[in-house]
């Protein structure tokens, strides 16, 4: 953790304000820019610290966006976490509320109805792609291939057949993994 200078903190906050507006496709899509800023430009964090922050945030409960707070925390402690997270949330929140209200007020117009129907196939397919991208590194490791594939397929089947809460499936996955079965 670094010594806190108000100028540095302001620098961090304003940079994340800007990244917020660029974060189409989620905060993670701006991770390369954050790496450039925090690691390469300022040296506030090293490579390992940067990667670990993202890995922890993805394994922990809650939105993956919270990795932003972990990065801020590792650089400037709690103040850094607040500056990074608020910076990352504020602009995108205002844009989202403005556009959502604008669209909702016009939801019966052809333009907005075409938006709802025309984007649905892409949105659903993005979910399938996201699932595949997460599954790939597991399936590509030869020693984990069969166990991982079996666990993924079992989860899909369980989800389609029963209304079981995802938390139980995740817990089962953690247990099976901890026992060395995948």
């Amino acid at each position, binding site marked *: 953790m670094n010594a806190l200078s108000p100028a540095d903190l302001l620098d961090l906050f304003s940079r994340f304000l800007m990244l917020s507006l660029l974060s189409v496709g*989620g905060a993670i899509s701006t991770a390369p820019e954050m790496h450039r800023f925090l690691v390469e430009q300022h040296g506030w964090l090293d490579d390992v610290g940067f990667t670990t922050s993202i890995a922890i945030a993805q*394994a922990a*409960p*809650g939105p993956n966006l919270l990795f932003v707070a972990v990065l801020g925390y590792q650089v400037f402690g709690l103040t850094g976490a607040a500056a990074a997270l608020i910076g990352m*949330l504020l602009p995108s929140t205002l844009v989202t509320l403005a556009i959502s209200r604008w669209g909702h007020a016009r939801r019966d117009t052809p333009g907005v109805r075409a938006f709802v129907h025309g984007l649905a*196939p892409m949105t659903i397919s993005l979910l399938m792609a996201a*699932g595949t991208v997460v599954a790939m590194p597991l399936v590509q490791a030869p020693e984990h291939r069969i166990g991982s594939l079996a666990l993924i397929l079992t989860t899909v089947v369980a*989800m389609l057949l029963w*209304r079981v809460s995802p938390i139980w499936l995740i817990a089962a996955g953690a247990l099976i993994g901890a026992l060395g079965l995948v």
Partner: protein
Amino acid sequence: MTDSDDSSHAGRPAPRSLTELFVTFTLLALQGFGGVLAVAHRSLVEQKRWLTREEFVELLSLSQLLPGANIVNMSLIVGDRSFGWRGALAALSGMMLVPLVVMLSLVAVYNHFSDHSAVAGALRGMAAVAAGLTLGMGLKLAASLRGNPLGWVLAAALGVATFVLIAVVRAPLMWVVPGLGLIGWALARWRLARREGA
């Protein structure tokens, strides 16, 4: 798949209070290991029934296009449509506050356990389940495409193009979403105009 197919708004369950919004989003965020979307789908569509499957897809489409995390944008919109900006704030802080405390505590203990092989195995198991949950949710939501004015050929073509570009070619989301989104929008607009007999 008979759950919440009707799109009528009358008599639909809705959040009753700011507290209910806050608690609902806190609970669903805390269950979201490796992504909150699958839990949000189960909680908002299948349990609370605040959203139909179609509305869930619609909010997700919008959230994809807008800057910010999808699930954060979705919580903002759900909150805003019930109680205005106070609802948006309640849903957003539900999604963030308690998970943030949990996460920063985890950062503090992580280093002690990071080299245990059981921890690495558990993370791998959780990642496999998270992948399965996302794929399963995609399959469930695909059923909502029935009745889409695009028709199944165009819908499937858009779906396959998206999948290939993102999962195979690894094209940046920042180009794929606006690009294919615009094509989908134009096609749907054309189909709607034709169906309604211009």
